[in-house]
C-alpha cells in the first residue's frame, strides 16, 4: 500500500493527478507540468516533499561519524545552521545516496535524504555508527514543503509564525533554522531561491492554505524533475547509483580531500580515480534536432556507443530538449543519440542549463565540458 503524506487531501482538492512515487502517493501535476515549471522560474511554486527521510544525528561521536560517513566534510560547517550537500559512499566509492546535512550545534545534525533509499540508508548509517557514541533518530510525521522561485522567499515569510519568519528571514543560502514550530532551510532542488519548510503534520493543511493565499502555486513531481534537470542537479537512481563515484558524476566539488587524515568511506577508490583520472563522466547534452531526449537512450560516436542518457527531457525554460548522460571520458565531438532507431545530432554543453531563471545555452555554444 502506498503511503500518503499529510497533504494528500490538499493535492486532490487542487486537482493533482496522484501517482505512486517511491511508495508514496504524490501529484505528478495539477493540470500542466509546463505551466507549473514556468511558475517556479518566474514567481513561486511549492512541492510536497514530505516523503523525504529526516534523520537526527546526535551523540558525542556525531561529528566524527559524519566525517567518516560522508565524502564531503562536515568540519567545514563552522557555524550553527549551515548546510552541506554530500554523497554517502560505499567502500568501492559508489554512491549509496546523496543528501543534505544540516548542523545545529556541536554534535547535533539533521540529515535529509531520498525517500526511495530510506531503509538502505538507515541500515548503512547504523552499521557505520556501530560501537560509537552516535544516536540516529528518524523523524516521522513531518510535512515538508519546498517553496521555490524568485518570489518564494518573500511570499513564504509573509505566511509564517513570527518565530519561523524571524528565523527564516535571517537565513543566507544553504542555511537552516530549527525552531519550536518547524524547521526552515534556504535550500532546494530547482536552481531557484526559496525555502524547504518542515512542520508537524497537524499544521500541514494550515501551512499549505496560507501559502496558496500568498500566491504560491502547487507544483508536481513532473515540474520538480524538469526544474532540477535544467539546474543540472543529479537525481539518485537515474544519474547516481551504487556503481558510480562522485568523480564520475561531475560532483568532484562535493568530495573534500583536504584533511589527509580523514578516512571517509570510499576514499581509497576515489584517490585512485583522482590520480589516474576517470574513464567516464557525466556531461550535459542538447538535442540539435526536433524530439525529446529520454533516459537510457544510447549516445554514439559513429557506430560506437560511448554511453547513455541518465536523465533527459524537454526543458521549458530553454525550449530545447536537454539531458545528462554518462559518457566515456574524454568524449569525442560529433555525437548522436539513438532516438527510436534514428541517429540525431547532440551537442555536449556545460550544465546547469538554466541559471537565475535564464538559459545558459547560447553563451555556451562554442564551449564544452
Amino acid at each position, binding site marked *: 500500500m502506498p503511503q500518503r503524506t499529510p497533504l494528500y487531501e490538499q493535492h486532490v482538492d487542487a486537482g493533482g493527478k496522484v501517482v505512486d512515487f517511491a511508495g508514496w502517493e504524490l501529484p*505528478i*501535476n495539477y493540470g*500542466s*507540468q*509546463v505551466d507549473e515549471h514556468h511558475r517556479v522560474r518566474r514567481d513561486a511554486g511549492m512541492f510536497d516533499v514530505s516523503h523525504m527521510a529526516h534523520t537526527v544525528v546526535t551523540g558525542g561521536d556525531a561529528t566524527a561519524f559524519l566525517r567518516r560517513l560522508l565524502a564531503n566534510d562536515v568540519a567545514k560547517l563552522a557555524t550553527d545552521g549551515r548546510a552541506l550537500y554530500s554523497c554517502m559512499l560505499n567502500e568501492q566509492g559508489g554512491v549509496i545516496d546523496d543528501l543534505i546535512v544540516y548542523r545545529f550545534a556541536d554534535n547535533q545534525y539533521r540529515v535529509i535524504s531520498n525517500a526511495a533509499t530510506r531503509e538502505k540508508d538507515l541500515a548503512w548509517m547504523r552499521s557505520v555508527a556501530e560501537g560509537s557514541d552516535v544516536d540516529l533518530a528518524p523523524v516521522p510525521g513531518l510535512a515538508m514543503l519546498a517553496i521555490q522561485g524568485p518570489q518564494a522567499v518573500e511570499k513564504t515569510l509573509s505566511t509564517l509564525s513570527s518565530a519561523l519568519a524571524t528565523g527564516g528571514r535571517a537565513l543566507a543560502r544553504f542555511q537552516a533554522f530549527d525552531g519550536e514550530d518547524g524547521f526552515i532551510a534556504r535550500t532546494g532542488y530547482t536552481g531557484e531561491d526559496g525555502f524547504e519548510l518542515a512542520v508537524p503534520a497537524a499544521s500541514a493543511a494550515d501551512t499549505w492554505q496560507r501559502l496558496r493565499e500568498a500566491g504560491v502555486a502547487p507544483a508536481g513531481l*513532473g515540474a520538480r524533475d*524538469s526544474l532540477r534537470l535544467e539546474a543540472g542537479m543529479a537525481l539518485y537512481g537515474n544519474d547516481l547509483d551504487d556503481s558510480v563515484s562522485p568523480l564520475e558524476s561531475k560532483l568532484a566539488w562535493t568530495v573534500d580531500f583536504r584533511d589527509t587524515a580523514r578516512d571517509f568511506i570510499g576514499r581509497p577508490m576515489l584517490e585512485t580515480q583522482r590520480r589516474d583520472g576517470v574513464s567516464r563522466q557525466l556531461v550535459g547534452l542538447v538535442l540539435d534536432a*526536433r*524530439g*525529446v531526449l*529520454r533516459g537510457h537512450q544510447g549516445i554514439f560516436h559513429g557506430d560506437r556507443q560511448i554511453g547513455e542518457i541518465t536523465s533527459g*527531457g*524537454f526543458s521549458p525554460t530553454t525550449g530545447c*530538449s536537454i539531458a545528462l548522460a554518462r559518457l566515456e571520458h574524454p568524449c569525442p565531438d560529433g555525437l548522436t543519440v539513438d532516438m*527510436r532507431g534514428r541517429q540525431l545530432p547532440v551537442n555536449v554543453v556545460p550544465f546547469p542549463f538554466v541559471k537565475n531563471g535564464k538559459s545558459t545555452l547560447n553563451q555556451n555554444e562554442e564551449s564544452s565540458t
Partner: protein
Amino acid sequence: MNLPNELKYAASHEWCKVEEGRATCGISDYAQDQLGDVVFVEVPDVGREVAAGEAIAVVESVKSASDIYAPVSGTVVEVNTALADSPEQVNDSPYEAGWLFAIEPSDASEADALMDASAYEASIS
C-alpha cells in the same frame, strides 16, 4: 472527459472524423490527458500510403513518446503543420486545432468498424 458523438475512436485512442471522402484524425481527450503536456509532434509525409494500425506519427509529451496509429488505411492527404510551433494545441484542443493528419480512406468500411463514443468511453472507464 469530452468525447464528441460524431467521431469514431480506435482502441489505441485516436479519433477519426469521416466526411466527404476524407478522414481527419487526432488523439482523444483521454489520450492527451494521460500524456500530459505535449511538447513535440512528428507527422507523416503527405502522399504516404498507410495501412490501418500502422504507426505513422509520434506525439512526445513531457512524460513519454507515443506512437500514433492510422485508424484507417489510405493516403495521407494533409497534415497539421501548425503543430510544429504550437504542439500544446493537442492538449488544448484535441478535436479541432490539435488534429494530426487527414487520410483519404481506401476502404470506407474500416471507419465504420471503429468504436462510437459510448463504446470508447466504456473501454477507458
